[in-house]
């Protein structure tokens, strides 16, 4: 099996304006690698939602993307506050984002459900006070 192609990004938590830059970069790379628009859209939307979440809730983090023969794996890791109730957080419309975030067009409580919707597998490892790691897979 050939070596997977890997991308790594540090997501700046201080800067809402630059949030999403990693996802834009991944989208561009996948396009260059010749993947179908459908696959590219799934990966980039899921990653973009996750990136925005890291900036809104966790003061940034690290994003890693691994392109394998049969799947694309996206790993988003932060050392933020953690998610106290994952089941609740997965409900459409549930959000803990503050009003200033809503004024920026986010925090509708659609991020996590949307990430699940656009990917084939999603796993949330989270511990309150320690951080959250979300692993998503899109099958090729």
């Amino acid at each position, binding site marked *: 099996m050939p070596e997977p192609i890997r991308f790594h990004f540090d997501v700046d938590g201080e800067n809402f304006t630059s949030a999403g830059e990693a*996802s834009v970069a991944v989208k561009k790379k996948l396009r260059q690698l010749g993947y179908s628009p459908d696959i590219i859209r799934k990966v980039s939307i899921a990653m973009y939602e996750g990136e925005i979440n890291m900036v809104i809730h966790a003061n940034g983090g690290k994003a890693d993307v691994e392109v394998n023969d049969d799947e694309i794996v996206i790993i988003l890791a932060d050392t933020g506050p953690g998610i106290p109730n994952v089941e609740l957080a997965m409900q459409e419309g549930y959000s803990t984002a503050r009003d200033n975030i809503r004024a920026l*067009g986010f925090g509708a409580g659609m991020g996590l459900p949307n990430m699940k*919707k656009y990917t084939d597998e999603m796993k949330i490892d989270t511990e309150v006070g320690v951080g959250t790691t979300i692993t998503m897979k899109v099958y090729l």
Partner: protein
Amino acid sequence: MKIAKIQELLGADLLCGEEYLDHDVWAACCSDMMSDVLAFVKDQGVLLTGLLNSQVIRTANMMDMVCIVIVRNKVPTEEMVELAEEHGLVLMRSPLRAYEASGVLYAAGLGREVADA
């Protein structure tokens, strides 16, 4: 509908993307909530919004949209215009309010062409 037609119908000023004006689009969506655009939109080529920040451009890019209309004559930031140029998007601003702009485009057939076909 050609993007040029959208510009004409909405009396909009073009801010960038002149080279894409003859592209066709089939549907549009209108929202200030980018979360909802990411969650509910499918194959709409045009985004009408009154929200002004760089995430508007990135959201449109993620959704493979081709045209963004800023309503209520709001003035997008320089960064938004630069990002739109970089992503090959048409960016325009219209004096119409979101409700009016949506109504004008809908009445002209945008978003109904596929359904009526």
